[in-house]
């Protein structure tokens, strides 16, 4: 597998956890019912149209009720930092540091050096990965190499089953770098991958293990209790176990010092098709320390009619950092914004995000004819 294929696999599986949000699940179920009603009405010669149904569904998904933009002010407040026409490129995350594969530096860890706990769960379509965190709680540094010699699952009734022997996940790295050289207090991880792609899982079947036992070479084993709400379900049979390792460093937006800011947009409730709309974005700093815009941040904005791919045709500009270079502690700064309104009339969504950060806002708007 080459570098692109590896990056592709990681990116596709590294999805935001919003998919498990019960509100979204509820909204989709509601949308299915509405869509079905619209189909039935259309079949019966009713007036419901697919486009109308789509609007209802998307509004349900966004949690907006009533007319889009209805909650917005009739006109955006004026008097913000003037907009500046300085276009920005698409944000490119800084390249991750390429680290040479580590070599074992210390004596091999034994089971008595380690304690374990359940880590994150990663949900990919067809694959569920439970991470197990193993910490060196001994007095000396040690190196955790290879993979668990066996992974045993323990059911709630105490029955034990060997789920895997050695590294059964093949060359999948799960983003780990190994072996893990652990000073006291440091942690390594091992990933347990299962699947929910089988008919038994589709019908709600379970084969749950409440505890896993990770055997470390021949030195013994570390028992890890899994949260009651998310036991290891191996109903589909296959279990992949990774080698031990330390999660790689990532250079994503999570480290941006701007992430402490919150954003809110004030867009007119109605804008005219084919024109340039003016709105404002207020950045608020809720912390006790000023946030400097020393390396002038750029933002991405879009306005997309419902029924089209939200985010299409996005524009990118820099903030007007010549006018303001700091957001004071506990303070807010309002920036004037401009955006090209699509030529399609009807309801639309807009979004605004500081590139390379988690700072974002957005809402709904109605596009009317000129």
């Amino acid at each position, binding site marked *: 597998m080459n570098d692109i294929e590896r990056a592709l696999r990681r990116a596709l599986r590294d999805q935001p956890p919003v998919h498990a949000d019960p509100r979204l699940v509820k909204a989709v179920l509601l949308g299915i019912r509405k869509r079905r009603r619209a189909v039935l009405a259309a079949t019966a010669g009713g007036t419901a149209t697919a486009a109308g149904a789509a609007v209802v569904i998307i509004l349900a998904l966004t949690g907006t009720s009533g007319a889009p933009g209805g909650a917005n002010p009739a006109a955006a407040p004026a008097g913000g930092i003037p907009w500046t026409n300085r276009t920005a490129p698409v944000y490119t995350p800084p390249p991750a540091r390429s680290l040479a594969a580590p070599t074992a530096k210390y004596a091999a860890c034994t089971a008595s050096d380690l304690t374990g706990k359940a880590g994150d769960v990663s949900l990919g379509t067809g694959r569920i990965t439970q991470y197990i965190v193993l910490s060196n709680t001994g007095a000396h540094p040690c190196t955790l190499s290879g993979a668990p010699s066996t992974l045993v699952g323990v059911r709630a009734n105490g029955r034990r089953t060997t789920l895997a022997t050695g590294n059964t996940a093949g060359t999948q790295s799960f983003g780990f770098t190994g072996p893990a050289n652990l000073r006291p207090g440091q942690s390594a991880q091992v990933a347990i991958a299962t699947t929910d792609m089988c008919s038994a899982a589709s019908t709600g079947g379970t084969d749950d293990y409440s505890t896993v036992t990770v055997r470390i070479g021949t030195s013994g084993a570390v028992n890890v209790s899994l949260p009651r709400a998310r036991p290891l379900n191996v109903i589909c049979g296959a279990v992949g176990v990774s080698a031990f390792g330390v999660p790689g460093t990532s250079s*994503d937006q999570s480290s941006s010092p701007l992430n402490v800011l919150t954003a809110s947009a004030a867009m007119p409730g109605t804008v005219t098709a084919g024109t340039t709309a003016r709105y404002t974005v207020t950045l608020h700093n809720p912390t006790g320390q000023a946030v400097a815009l020393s390396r002038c941040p750029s933002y991405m904005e879009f306005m997309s009619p419902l029924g089209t791919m939200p985010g299409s045709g996005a524009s990118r500009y820099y903030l007007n950092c010549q006018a303001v270079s700091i957001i004071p502690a506990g303070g807010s700064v309002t920036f004037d914004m401009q955006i090209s309104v699509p030529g399609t009339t009807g309801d639309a969504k807009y979004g605004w995000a500081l590139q390379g950060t988690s700072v974002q806002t957005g809402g709904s708007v109605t596009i009317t004819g000129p």
Partner: protein
Amino acid sequence: MNQTERMTIEGFARARLPALLRFGYALTGNQEAASDLVQEALVRTGARWSWRARREDPEGYTRRVMINTNVSWWRQRRREWPTASPPDRGYDMQYRDYELWRALSSLPARQRAVLVLRYYEDLSEAQAADLLGCSIGTVKSQSAKAIAKLRAILEASALEAK
């Protein structure tokens, strides 16, 4: 469709929705498009639910509908905006692997579906071909073309950033 059958499709939808949404996200790179895709596919799956539940794998059918619907929507979008830039990741997206997602969004929907099935679902070429209703050779060639295009886009993007 009687009440019992309706409850059954809703039960299926409730149980499999998170996985289907993740699949939709992988296909579209967009949360709301994924939601729309899943709704459309589940409505179609539910149209002959009792027959489908008895005769075939409902989840496999739903995923097939999602792939085909996404291809259809992609063609429609391409006709409507022939010069538009590739769909952006929504404002609610994280920016990890941004360039790769952006490159993915520029691929034809069919090629993207091949990549999703091969590198996300871990399906074999034969399984992917079966789901897509094409030959193994087509899966191989589409996959190779898609990877080559991704590489070209990412390399060009890296050069631009220098």
